[in-house]
């Protein structure tokens, strides 16, 4: 129920408060009514039941992945 998927913003309509997003090649329209920041094409959002919930913090994602690489480096056999 609480599953949400990352999606890439293709285009936004700030008046209608919607955006066209793409996940794994599938495009659909979502509501952006809940998003605090402004969105632009190329941004990534978390999508849940037809809504963009939040803009994904790509910098944080990259930092997390870098931390993973450190673990692999130290603990990979």
């Amino acid at each position, binding site marked *: *129920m*609480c*599953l*949400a*998927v*990352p999606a*890439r913003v293709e285009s936004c309509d700030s008046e209608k408060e919607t955006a066209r997003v793409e*996940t*794994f090649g599938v495009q659909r329209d979502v*509501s952006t*009514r*809940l*998003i*605090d920041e402004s969105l632009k094409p190329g941004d*990534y959002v*978390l999508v*849940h*039941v*037809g*809504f963009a*919930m*939040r803009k*994904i*913090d*790509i910098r*944080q*994602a*990259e*930092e*997390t*992945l*870098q*931390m*993973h690489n450190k*673990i*692999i480096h*130290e*603990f*990979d*056999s």
Partner: protein
Amino acid sequence: MSLTADTDLVDSFRDGRKIRAFARAIDNCYDGRPLAIMEVCGGHTHTIYRYGLAQHLPPGLKLIHGPGCPVCIMPKERIDAAIRMAQKPGVILVTLGDMMRVPGETMSLADARAGGARVEVVYSPLDTLKIALQNPHHRVVFFAIGFETTTPMTAVLVESVIAQKIKNVFFHINHVLVPPAVRALLEQQNNIDAFIAPSHVSVVTGAGIYQFMVSEYNRPVVVAGFEPVDVMQAILMLLQQDTPRLEIQYKRNVDMKGGLKAQQLVNTYFEIAPEFHWRGLGPIPASSLQLREEFSSHDAAIEFADECQLKPVPDHKLCLCGEILKGRALPKDCRVFGKGCTPEKPLGPCMVSSEGACAAEFKYGSLL
């Protein structure tokens, strides 16, 4: 490193090599003391089963499944209320797919639909608007379920209904809250040492809602993402804490504050309801939401007062969902698991819901 494709936000958090590396890091860090970690959210339960994460952990480290499955904790009487409304002539009941096959006292919504009741499944709550506009002489009831993740979406539906002056939409509200449920667990029992906190509830509310688990109950808490590498990293972070703290592993989507617009919307349309009877946990005060009084013209509890009368309906005698939701039993402890209760013919919600522990055990358990 730059992120250019979906793979970087999904596949890299499912990478088997990383899962195994984190397993070794956990093993290296673990001091051997028996430790019980509860993952609150059903989505995490599902990830743990699907990727067989428990196998990667040292034997003293136990994972306990929590009550964070909004379908699983729904008591039968609320499903029956939805069924009674759906069965009334001139009513269309609108629901997310998750609730269709969960048994009420005598039947599920799917059974009711097969019997002629008008039940529509939607992907988004906003799809309700079209149904209402296309059926102006019907009363359309939205069966609202979910934790804090989904409540803002219902709030947007309420906002749209009012803005567009759509008079024939009503709300059967069953939104529940995570912190009171966790507090009830911590008060009722003492078998949980640490917590993996929900991912997407936290996106909306901010991680700050779990601070009381540290300050009042001295338990370590890490907010984890849904992917298997997220969960493994969160377990490592829990082990690495010297004194109990609240930390966020899911930093790409969660901060302490959460979504302000979402919170404001929820606050505009909803208030805390006096009590909600949780399957397994029992009645918990101030653990759910109801529509604010000024919107009572759209409240199904008032429009359909008769049908929405909630008389507690006991679970099936042999159904162990209640104990499973508290982390006090495992699916395999249930006498009817896999025999009288299967995904095709479920006796309880834990077998129906995609996030239920029993459904996960049934689907993935034999693979381990």
